[in-house]
């Protein structure tokens, strides 16, 4: 008897049981996962949804933000060490400079800003000692997730974690922000300046969302210049707290945004458009990240009026390259065994993603292309990349020197 192996394999998978999942289940799981990533800067808003995904999908590593267990505190790496001289907040002329430093209001820690773009800069706000936690395996004795048995978050081991942040502060360049999403909100004043508080306003202005409990505050920190605080943690922060956080925002002498990697070569025509310690929403990895750089072919179009801080929505067809530096426990890809562990490599089956390990082995750079760039070009960017000491921000490069 002689058999063709391909036929053997086809036969072995024949007669499968009825599928437990359909297309709708996949789309639902994808949406929930996307919701988790969108909320990675806050996380807690989707904790329940994430757990549901973990149960239905048995995803081994999912982020869920929640207050940390007692005794498990961790200082946010971007929390300010010293209090700088304060001045009235004034948006810098240079798009590559920050206008403010972190500050604390009660249990709210406004971290140092992490991102500069043409139209705005942003900082995360941590509530108490909240953590962003990534679930690992199910705890011993717990059944794996199936549709009829949905383990709760307590059923999973915590694989790794980082400080979380449930609020996001966006400070817009004067003339950029349009507070249309706050239409119908309550009139308030912050430091004598007018503002609007709304009980439910989504960061991305999604018209299809129906969940409630996402309050937000927009106020003018200067004439025709707006700042906005959004939340991803529903029903946790009240109006008075929003106002107190806003009241605490003051300016400092403008200082340069810095990043932990420097690119010495990029494909022709690509220009840096945004970057910092972490990425623009909904991209990036929150406190698991230490650098983001976004380069757009031909540069970006002039910044128009913005109602949200979304510069690259999921339907975007912009030809761009993103360079992100992640903690290795957050980043999932590793160099092939036996290969040079410091050399760039690409993700099999997805030619838009390539990687390079940092020399210390604790961090990993990911480059994500738009699909228009060759893997040779992407690898070239990684090969020409210099690392600062990631753990020591005083060694980081000013972002204006981070690209050729």
């Amino acid at each position, binding site marked *: *008897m002689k058999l063709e*192996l391909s036929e053997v*394999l086809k036969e072995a998978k024949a007669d499968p049981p009825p599928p437990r999942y359909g297309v709708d289940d996949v789309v639902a799981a994808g949406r929930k996962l996307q919701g988790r990533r969108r909320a990675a800067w806050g996380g807690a808003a989707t904790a329940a949804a994430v757990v549901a995904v973990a149960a239905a999908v048995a995803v081994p590593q999912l982020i869920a933000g929640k207050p940390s267990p007692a005794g498990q505190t961790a200082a946010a790496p971007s929390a300010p060490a010293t209090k700088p001289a304060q001045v009235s907040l004034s948006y810098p002329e240079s798009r590559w400079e920050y206008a403010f430093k972190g500050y604390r209001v009660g249990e709210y820690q406004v971290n140092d800003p992490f991102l500069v773009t043409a139209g705005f800069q942003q900082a995360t706000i941590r509530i108490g000692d909240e953590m962003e936690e990534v679930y690992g*395996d199910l705890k011993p004795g717990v059944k794996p997730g199936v549709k009829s048995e949905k383990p709760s978050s307590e059923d999973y081991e915590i694989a790794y974690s980082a400080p979380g942040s449930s609020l996001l502060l966006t400070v817009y360049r004067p003339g950029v922000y349009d507070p249309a999403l706050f239409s119908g909100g309550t009139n308030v004043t912050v430091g004598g300046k007018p503002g609007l508080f709304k009980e439910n306003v989504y960061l991305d202005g999604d018209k299809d969302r129906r969940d409630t409990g996402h309050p937000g505050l927009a106020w003018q920190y200067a004439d025709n210049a707006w700042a906005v605080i959004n939340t991803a943690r529903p029903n946790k922060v009240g109006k008075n707290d929003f106002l107190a956080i806003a009241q605490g925002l003051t300016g400092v002498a403008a200082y340069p945004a810095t990043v932990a990697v420097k690119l010495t070569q990029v494909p022709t025509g690509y220009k840096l458009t945004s970057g910092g310690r972490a990425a623009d929403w909904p991209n990036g990895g929150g406190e698991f990240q230490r650098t983001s750089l976004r380069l757009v072919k031909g540069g970006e179009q002039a910044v128009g009026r913005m109602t949200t801080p979304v510069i690259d929505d*999921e339907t975007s067809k912009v030809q761009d390259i993103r360079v992100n530096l992640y903690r290795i426990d957050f980043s999932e890809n590793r160099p092939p065994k036996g290969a040079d562990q410091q050399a760039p490599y690409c993700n099999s089956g*997805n030619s*838009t993603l390539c990687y390079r390990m940092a020399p210390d082995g604790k961090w990993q750079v990911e480059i994500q292309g738009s699909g228009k760039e060759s893997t040779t070009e992407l690898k070239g960017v990684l090969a020409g990349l210099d690392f600062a000491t990631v753990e020591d921000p005083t060694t980081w490069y000013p972002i204006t020197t981070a690209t050729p």
Partner: protein
Amino acid sequence: MSDRETQFRDFVGAQMEPLRGLAYLTCGDWQVAEDAVLTVLAKLYVKWNRVDRPESYARTAVVRAAIDETRRPWWRREQSHSHAMPERSQPDRTGAVDDRLHLRQALRRLPPRLRAVLVLRFLEGQSVQQTAEALGCPEGTVKSYTARGLEALREVLGIDLSAETREGRHEVRAV
């Protein structure tokens, strides 16, 4: 519904069943296979616009995920308690089910990565290089696994096996 979602739904509708079979051959458990496929497709949904070869991406990711599932402590623990969906054990009159069970049992006796090499090369038609990239191992390992896998299957099945790959034809004869 957006074009993006329509395209994704069409893709899932067409690929979910083949991916389920692929994952099953890799991990040997239909339930675990389905979880692995759902995990991969959920992640693919998030990055749908940025994956230029979704079929290739999904196949590779599913095999990796299925291997990872077999590494989990709970999976190993539960296997000994028949967590896997029960196979039919009654012989049928045509012998087709018996043959299938025999094949499945033979595949299950192979380590997951070795099984994955056979699946990727002989069912998916991937080259040595592609298989090595997919599994994150040297090409030499893929070649070694191919030979070992074919030999192991021949021993278990007690039959000659013939297998066509991009690099040539493999013949393994029973002795």
